[in-house]
């Protein structure tokens, strides 16, 4: 068998990849994802609250509380278990997740003892199209080497231009948390 030139091979691979991915796309929702990790929960706590010490408090929202918060914040509530921490001064450190149409964002939020939001840090940002990537290797065979690189974009993400990502879901999430503070957290006695 004669060797084709690199150019032709690449083109064929692209074409094949295109056709295969189009077919797969029609049958199984394929995933495209980009993930960026900014800070750990501990780092975010220090960024928002410095050296202040926090203790985790177990809080589970009742059905009634969930309904009230949902109505006040006009946003969905995915989990009734809260991941919240309180300091001796009555300040709160909250770990939360917001889910948009294409994005999953892990957030850390500081709310002080008067209910004021003192800081919001994005911990991790994941953007996905179709389903979340379950097996990157499986996907890589369809999209070539470029795809596996895209999955590890953390180092390069700081130089991406053109991605005007909307933070509307984060705004909704913050609204949900301030309402949660007002209805629930504020009234918790130690």
């Amino acid at each position, binding site marked *: 068998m004669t060797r084709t030139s690199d150019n032709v091979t690449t083109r064929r691979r692209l074409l094949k990849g295109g056709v295969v991915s189009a077919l797969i796309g029609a049958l199984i929702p394929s995933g495209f994802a980009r993930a*960026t990790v*900014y800070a750990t929960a501990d780092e975010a706590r220090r*960024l928002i609250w410095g050296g202040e010490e926090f203790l985790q408090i177990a809080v589970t929202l009742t059905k009634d509380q969930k309904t009230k918060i949902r109505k006040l914040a006009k946003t969905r509530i995915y989990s009734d278990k809260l991941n919240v921490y309180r300091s001796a001064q009555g300040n709160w450190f909250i770990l939360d997740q917001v889910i948009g149409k294409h994005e999953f964002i892990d957030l850390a939020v500081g709310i002080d003892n008067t209910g004021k939001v003192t800081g919001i840090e994005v911990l991790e*940002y994941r953007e996905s199209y179709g389903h979340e990537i379950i097996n990157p290797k499986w996907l890589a065979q369809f999209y070539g080497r470029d795809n596996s690189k895209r999955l590890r974009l953390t180092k390069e993400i*700081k*130089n*991406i231009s*053109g991605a005007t990502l909307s*933070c509307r879901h984060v705004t909704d999430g913050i609204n949900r948390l301030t309402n949660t503070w007002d209805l629930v957290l504020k009234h918790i006695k130690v």
Partner: protein
Amino acid sequence: MSEISRAQPWLGTFVEIYIKADIGPDELASISQAGFDKIAHIHKLMSYHEGDSELTKINRNAASAKVQISPHMQRVMTLALDLSKRSDGRFDVSIAPELIQKGYLPNTIERPKNPGDWRDIELLPDEIGFKKPLLLDLGGIAKGYAVDLAFDCMSEMVPDAHQISVNAGGDLRVLRWQGEKAQIEYRDIMNRPRYAPVPMLAPAMASSGLYPRGKDNHLVFRPGDNQKRPRRNVITVFASSSMVADALTKVAYLADDYLDLVREFGGIALATNWTGRAKVMS
């Protein structure tokens, strides 16, 4: 040597700050915080959505009486009006009424029936007035200005940093940009995001022309023109500042015939097509 990478939601998007320098983690935290404080300040002045922003006060009152403005607003409006004049109105920050009509901005302030345009804006030292009722939306240009302000503040604090970058939803400013690569996000034929690598050609870059997902709508409008822009590409502009780069992407995107203006401001415009090929526009 240590580094920090943080992201916060501001200006309707996510703002990323990255610093790499020979300083301790506490210092990195406080310097990046100083950068975010600048961004937050501009958000509070120039957000269309904040009910008590300086922009909202101007939009509500400038048609009936002159409104005092901050030096920040003065700088942004000076560039905006200069660009409007030199592009014969292709670039126009009084686009808000059209954006409200198309559902991109909330109808919190009543849309004027026959709104004026950039020619009806009177910018005086420390004051602004409208000759006709109109509404301003500073969107991209304010975002670019906020990036510059945060960047300048942090690079003054650590002038010998190995790297500083600020990215607000695609408005990017980089300290050591020579030899750095950037990625332009574009959409392939199936509307999936892909990234085209390009070398950084200047300290700042901005891109325009991506569409909201799943909709055939356009985020960039030519004032007074309901025609759809060609779906083909993303326009990226490299310039010395983010504010200029962001504003010039709109000029280059909307008016190919005004590319001279991009050059006059020292900008370089690139067009990326759906295959990811980036080409210098001339």
